[in-house]
């Protein structure tokens, strides 16, 4: 039974008492909203009379026993403005249109262990409705929330389909990193594994006070997901099918250099600068002429074959003169996806159910034998009123995800991308003319492998990996209401999670010379092996709590008291079989036999567990809805700390004042219908340490070493030294909030400002000299202060346009924060290589270097005058025109880092900050005549980034020259005597990659601003008029187009269109550098059908 109906029923009972039974007639009619849609559950009463009725699912109603005189009909429904209409005598039908009521005063929000009326909230909570996620095509709910909630930061670590983004509330949390707690229907879970169609609402709890009942893990916020439950529309089930089909494209350029001539020319040019006189590719003048003759051949011209046979040094050789587009031979720019989902919901007064399923299939970008992701989700939920005072419910969900891809390593697909980033050069074909694979080449200076065999692996399709993720979760809850004011709730959740990866690698054959026998590569990338890895997680949690709620004389109190217990056991199993006797079958039992007759296998594993126990309480009080007070606290214990350090008490309090409810405010209420001021304070624990951090452990593993015993030696290693008195980090948070609503809440405003102190962060206690022989033990000895604000404004209205209601809405939100270290005892010299007091997190120190030397004399004079050795590594020839000029800001005649301290940073200054300075989102939506359209923008403010040394897409051959995917026409951006306005300096290989190289040092010229504005989503839909759909027995049909990440603007693109600015937000920059799974945009067409 939903709230609408409850209220309707109440009104009905109320009305029935005053039913007059004189002369009677029967009235009937239909209540619709402004779009013509029937409103179910609206209460109909006759003013002054007893009795009434409630509209049915179509908004229709019939009321008998109405006086034959003129009566006043009153219609009310939550969410709509009430209406009253006079019904003259003799009239039998009355159709009514109710307008949407934006006030939604009774709107409730899910909070910890309960719900609260939105108007009574004193904490910083933003709620997202499930409907808002409906049109999104992102791979998971987490991604969909990006930009939707101010202060909620979603950062994708990778564009790989099965990777879930990181979530963070209110910015930099702790040096140790900490994520918000995610609860799905009350039990800890993974937001990315929730079917977006199942979401009823998501509450993002941002301040500590509102999160306090969750204690130790909630210090950095809580995300509460509530899934849909059944509907109580008696007898009528709703079946909803939704299907969408479309494709994805990379958001970044894939236009790489495919001309052999320019590839070899550029590589050797850059290589020469590092190793003068040497060639990376041993191509002589004749070879270069051959390449030049073919430079415009997009496909092979039979007169100028791309591979030529030649005898050199008595050995027959293949000369490679190709213009092969390795990227597009390996990858596609358009990969299809589709999604199917079905749900059934229904029930009655005492029983409600909801069942939903989803199948999502996405093909990846690999062109030959593509990678693909399949996701299956199922949820079944029921609730039953067993007795008048007891109800039970059960919520079961199953999640199954499978990502299947070809690979070149035993690691994940990201590694394969990194792996294939080198030596897949345009000159090389996949195969030699005789059909053998190209792998090693004698034209390299060392035994480098062409694309690390990616072309072979993808084509042969034997080395497929499967990453499976399964999850089964079940929550059973019982609610007992012994007296009206008291509800006892007990629930128990168990969840089995199993991640399983299968990785296979096989040997392959290749040839370097035409006359040799094919060579089998059976080590390294050709190692014949199968690896099965399983992670098993068993999680259990139990909550028992009592909720008491009462009203007297305008005082309203709610109290919650309870306990929570959770435990998780994790286990990892790994088994590898080597030299399998089959290339096609993948089973551990097929392992080959070692010389001593044993099976060639390897096994490994680990286990761990933790437990948490907490007792919590919350007390809410309000007086006439004007003065609001909330006090809560939690006493938490964690197995992660030593006895004596494991319990902590974490209190919080918050208060609110609804100024708009004060009598003196009444005159202003027409304009400003709501004004509320809120303040909260909390002190929560954070247990970010690993499960046994306070213990020193000795673990045994295989060494890469042997003692003549016919097997790898086992070797023990000891964990880093630690401090035994480790305890909780404490997180204090102050939050000031303001809510305002204008013009019946058409215009809404919410603002929050907060200060969060993370105290006692576990950090390496002291920067110890290396002679200590280990990383410094961690202690609770650093503090961090984060300050920030969040604003959101929305306008929503509706008017009639050309005979149909025209609804539109605009909403905008933004948030910002900064974080400073406020205590860090153990870096008294303020060394920049560590945190220090006063450090703003994300600050980037670097040199001022804006200009390139105009001529050799200027360069040499400068190098003579200033000691440039700090930035000179890898300069094969000395300083000359076109090299980057570093400014000697401190005038000491040396480019350097001084003492590497804040007070003496040498020639460095703070150039910018790597944390996004602003995050914002904006939504525009309209609907009219069944058409609906919305655009969602999302972006960040200034956000600086210095490209890391391996960033091939940015640095090109300044990093490593031999990259597989070199930016096309890169030389246009490279300084040369004829190209002195170029962005990049003189061609010099490796100066971005090697430590001390000219581009390796952070400097102003190449610092990038990655701020961006992106069209995150565009949706255009049309709902076919119900009149038509009814004829084919369908309640609703909507067809739509939706696109994700369709456009993006960023200053980064001025210098590089091969990178997505969102990729830079992730800290782990070393990993995506060489080559990475491209960020994707998607285009989808869908249909929603409701029966």
């Amino acid at each position, binding site marked *: 039974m939903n709230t609408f109906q409850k209220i309707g029923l109440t009104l009905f009972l109320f009305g029935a008492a005053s039913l007059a039974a004189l002369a009677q007639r029967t009235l009937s009619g239909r209540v619709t909203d402004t779009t013509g849609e029937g409103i179910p559950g609206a209460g109909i009463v006759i003013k002054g009379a007893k009795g009434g009725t409630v509209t049915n699912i179509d908004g229709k109603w019939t009321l008998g026993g109405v006086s034959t005189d003129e009566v006043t009909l009153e219609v009310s429904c939550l969410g709509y403005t009430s209406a009253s209409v006079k019904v003259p005598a003799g009239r039998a039908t009355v159709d009514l249109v109710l307008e949407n009521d934006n006030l939604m005063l009774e709107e409730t929000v899910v909070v910890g262990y309960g719900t609260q009326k939105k108007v009574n909230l004193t904490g910083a909570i933003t709620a997202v409705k499930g409907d808002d996620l409906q049109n999104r095509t992102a791979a998971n709910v987490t991604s969909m929330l990006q930009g939707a909630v101010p202060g909620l930061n979603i950062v994708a670590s990778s564009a790989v389909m099965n990777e879930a983004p990181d979530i963070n509330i209110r910015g930099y949390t702790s040096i140790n990193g900490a994520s918000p707690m995610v609860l799905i229907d009350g039990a800890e879970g993974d937001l990315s594994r929730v079917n977006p169609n199942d979401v009823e609402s998501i509450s993002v709890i941002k301040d500590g006070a509102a999160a306090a009942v969750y204690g130790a893990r909630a210090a950095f916020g809580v995300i509460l997901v509530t899934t849909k439950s059944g509907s109580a529309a008696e007898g009528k089930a709703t079946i909803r099918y939704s299907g969408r089909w479309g494709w994805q494209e990379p958001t970044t350029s894939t236009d790489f250099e495919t001309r052999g001539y320019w590839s070899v020319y550029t590589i050797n040019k850059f290589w020469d600068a590092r190793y003068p006189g040497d060639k990376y590719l041993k191509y002589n003048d004749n070879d270069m002429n051959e390449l030049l003759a073919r430079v415009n051949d997009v496909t092979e011209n039979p007169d100028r074959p791309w591979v030529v046979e030649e005898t050199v040094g008595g050995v027959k050789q293949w000369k490679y003169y190709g213009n092969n587009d390795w990227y597009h031979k390996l990858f596609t720019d358009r990969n299809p996806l589709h999604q199917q989902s079905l749900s059934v919901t229904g029930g009655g007064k005492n029983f409600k159910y909801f069942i939903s399923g989803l199948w999502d299939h996405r093909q990846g970008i690999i062109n030959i034998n593509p990678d693909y992701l399949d996701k299956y989700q199922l949820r079944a939920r029921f609730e039953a009123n067993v007795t008048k005072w007891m109800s039970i419910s059960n919520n079961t969900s199953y999640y199954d995800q499978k990502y299947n891809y070809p690979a070149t390593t035993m690691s994940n697909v990201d590694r394969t991308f990194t792996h294939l980033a080198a030596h897949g050069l345009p000159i090389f074909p996949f195969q030699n003319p005789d059909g053998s694979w190209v792998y090693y080449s004698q034209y390299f200076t*060392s035994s480098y492998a062409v694309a690390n065999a990616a072309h072979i692996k993808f084509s042969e399709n034997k080395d497929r990996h499967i990453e499976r993720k399964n999850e089964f979760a079940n929550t059973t809850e019982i609610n007992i209401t012994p007296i009206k004011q008291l509800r006892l709730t007990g629930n128990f959740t168990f969840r089995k999670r199993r991640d399983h990866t299968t990785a296979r690698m096989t040997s392959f054959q290749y040839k370097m010379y035409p006359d040799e026998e094919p060579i*089998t590569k059976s*080590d390294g990338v050709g190692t014949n092996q199968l690896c099965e890895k399983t992670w098993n997680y068993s999680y259990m949690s139990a909550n028992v709590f009592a909720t008491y709620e009462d009203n007297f004389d305008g005082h309203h109190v709610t109290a919650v008291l309870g306990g929570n217990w959770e435990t998780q056991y994790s286990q990892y199993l790994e088994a590898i079989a080597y030299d399998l006797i089959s290339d096609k079958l993948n089973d551990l039992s097929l392992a080959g036999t*070692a010389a001593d007759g044993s099976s*060639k296998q390897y096994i490994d594993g680990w286990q761990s567990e933790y437990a948490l126990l907490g007792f919590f309480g919350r007390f809410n009080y309000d007086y006439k809805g004007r003065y609001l007070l909330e006090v809560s606290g939690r006493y938490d214990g964690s197995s992660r700390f030593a006895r004596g350090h494991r319990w902590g008490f974490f209190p919080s309090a918050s208060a609110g004042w609804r100024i708009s409810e004060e009598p003196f405010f009444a005159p202003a209420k027409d304009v400003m219908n709501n004004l509320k001021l809120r303040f909260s304070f909390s002190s929560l624990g954070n247990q970010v340490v690993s499960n046994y951090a306070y213990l020193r452990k000795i673990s045994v593993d295989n*060494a890469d070493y042997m*003692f003549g015993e016919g097997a790898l030696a086992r070797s023990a290693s000891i964990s880093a030294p630690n401090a035994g008195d480790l305890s909780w980090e404490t997180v204090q948070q102050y939050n000031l909030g303001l809510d305002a609503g204008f013009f019946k809440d058409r215009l809404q405003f919410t603002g929050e400002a907060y200060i969060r102190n993370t105290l006692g962060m576990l950090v390496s206690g002291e920067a110890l*000299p290396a*002679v*200590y022989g280990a990383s410094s033990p961690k202690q609770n000895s650093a503090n961090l202060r984060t300050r920030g604000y969040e604003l959101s404004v929305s306008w929503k209205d509706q008017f009639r346009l050309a005979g149909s209601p025209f609804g539109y809405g605009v909403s905008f939100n933004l948030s910002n924060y900064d974080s400073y270290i406020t205590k860090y005892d153990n870096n008294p010299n303020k060394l920049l290589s560590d945190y220090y007091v006063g450090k703003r997190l994300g600050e980037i120190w670097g040199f001022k270097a804006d200009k390139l030397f105009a001529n050799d004399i200027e360069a040499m004079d400068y190098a003579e005058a200033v000691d440039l050795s700090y930035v000179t590594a890898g300069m094969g020839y000395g300083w000359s025109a076109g090299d980057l000029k570093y400014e000697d800001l401190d005038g000491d005649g040396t480019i350097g880092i001084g003492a590497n301290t804040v007070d003496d940073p040498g020639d460095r200054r703070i150039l910018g900050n790597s944390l996004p300075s602003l995050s914002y989102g904006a939504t525009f939506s309209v609907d009219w005549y069944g058409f609906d359209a919305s655009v969602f923008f999302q972006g960040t403010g200034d956000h600086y980034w210095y490209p890391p040394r391996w960033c091939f897409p940015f640095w090109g051959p300044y990093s490593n020259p031999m990259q597989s995917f070199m930016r096309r026409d890169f030389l246009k951006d490279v300084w040369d005597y004829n190209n002195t306005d170029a962005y990049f300096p003189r061609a010099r290989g490796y100066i971005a990659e090697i430590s001390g190289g000219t581009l390796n040092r952070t400097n102003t010229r190449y610092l990038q601003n990655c701020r961006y504005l992106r069209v995150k989503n565009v949706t255009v839909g049309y709902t076919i008029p119900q009149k038509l759909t009814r004829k084919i027995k369908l309640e609703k049909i909507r067809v739509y187009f939706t696109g994700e990440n369709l456009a993006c603007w960023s200053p980064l693109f001025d210098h590089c269109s091969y990178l997505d600015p969102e990729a830079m937000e992730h800290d782990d920059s070393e990993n995506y550098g060489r080559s990475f799974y491209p960020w994707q945009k998607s285009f989808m067409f869908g249909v929603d059908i409701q029966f």
Partner: protein
Amino acid sequence: MKKIYRIVTLLAAWMFLAACDDALNKYPLDSITEEAYFETATQLQLFTNSFYSSILPDVPYDEQSDLMVATRLSNLLTNSSFRTVPASGGGWSWTTLRKINTCLGNLYRCKDEEAVKEYNALCKFFRAWFYFDKVQRFGDVPWIDHELASDEKEALYHPRDNRDYVMARMIEDIDEAIAGLPSSYANGKTYRATKWAALALKARFCLFEGTFRKYHAGDITLWTLPVDANPPEYYLQLAAEAAEELIDLGPHSLYSTGHPDYDYQNLFAQYDADPKEYILAIDYDYGFTCTHDASGVALLSVCGRNSPTRGFIDHYLMADGKRYSSVEGWSTKTFEEQVKGRDPRLHQTIRIPGYSYTKLTTNRASFCDMDVSLTGYSINKFVMPSDNMVMNNIRSNSYNDMPVIRIAEVYLIFAEAKAELGTLKQADLDKSVNLLRRRAGMPDLDMNAANRTPDPYLTSEATGYPNVTGENKGVILEIRRERVVELAMEGLRYADLLRWASYGRILQGLYGMYFPGPGEYDWDKDGKADICLYTGSKPSTDATFVYKIGTDITLTEGTKGYVNPNPTYTISLDPDRDYLYPIPTNERVLNHALLQNPNWPDGLSY
């Protein structure tokens, strides 16, 4: 009654909370806590196993020195921008020492007294080795003998101890290792350290210290020794004693089957270490991907192309014991003439015409393939004469065991220490160096003859070690020659140059074969040219290898001269600086008492 209720309530509350606390006791399920470890011999063995891989040098064959160069010269050989003061790292790592000290601090808890003795000795062995590496690299270093706690300020911020003090501690350690390590292991293999390995190590580092002090006596800037520091002779004496004890009492002797033409080569081309000659070895096994690069380095163009220099070849005597430098026109002989009739170990170390390297059946098994070798000379040693082409044709496919210390080196240490001390007798040579000579089919080294007329090649400023003086000058130089020949590519050469103050050998220039000019060269006399050099346009030739002078190879005098393997590198070591490495800046910032090595400017004022 009320009182009882109260007591019961309190008791119940107390029990409840205690139970709650117990529910939070979770201990590791997959590893042992420190308190519960170090109790059995097996646990001690597992803990010490990692010391082998962290400390033993495992890839000696691709070292670079005056005898061996590679495509990219290591920063040891150049004084380029690569050689800078690092911010961190730079060899200043102490993790392994901590682990050794952890073990030493805990192993007494083991109930098995024999095991305590053995593993204590093993830890001391590795601690001495660890410090040997540190002293070689940095000179003075802080001595740390226990697992440091984070609040031990005194020890953590200690200045560097002078090398004499550190050596004294190392000698204590190694003596304890000699006393405590078993003389052999049950399986008869030599992959674990024995007391003999400890003796050999002692001999090695004492010789290092003795000769280093002796030959750097003038370089007072390199250290500040206390006045009562032990003289070089003290260490030389210890080295000689340790070596002699090992020679006289130990079970080790040379591998020989009486075939001077291939015994030397076969010693290094066995899958399993020869337990007689190898005192300590590293086990490699293809099946467990414990492999190394030796055949790749020798046979492929893609493993760095480590190539012997001409100076290396010049060290070899003629087969009859005569000096190569006495041969007319020795310095400009071409390859085939140069290598003909030399010490038989030459053709067992590099590939020369007429010798059976053909089993190395790859298309890169020639003796003059300059795509493989930068100098023209190609390596034979450590290569398995496998008939499996594929195995040799791929890098990281070699799995013949590698020597760490072998008895041959001990012979050489013994002879050198005694020669430097001035106590060497012919009889000493006969029980050491001459055993090596005899295995190789070479005439004995005659001490008096050597001292009478030192080889001008070895004394010359231009080619040798001009700083050797004294009565034993001749025999010292002959022993050095023997080290070059016998211990070629075994990873010891660079330390030898250090301790002999002989960077001069590098500065003399690193060159390859001599070519009198363009043309065809048929070295194996099969009627078909092996190599053809040309200028201008490519001549018609049936030579296997054809190179354009100036483009494919560089010769020192334009169209003739020695092959210059690394024409783009400048070699300019600074002998006032480069015998010691710099301390990383970050470490000095943290600990101001840590003084920088001389002439390494790091911008810090203390």
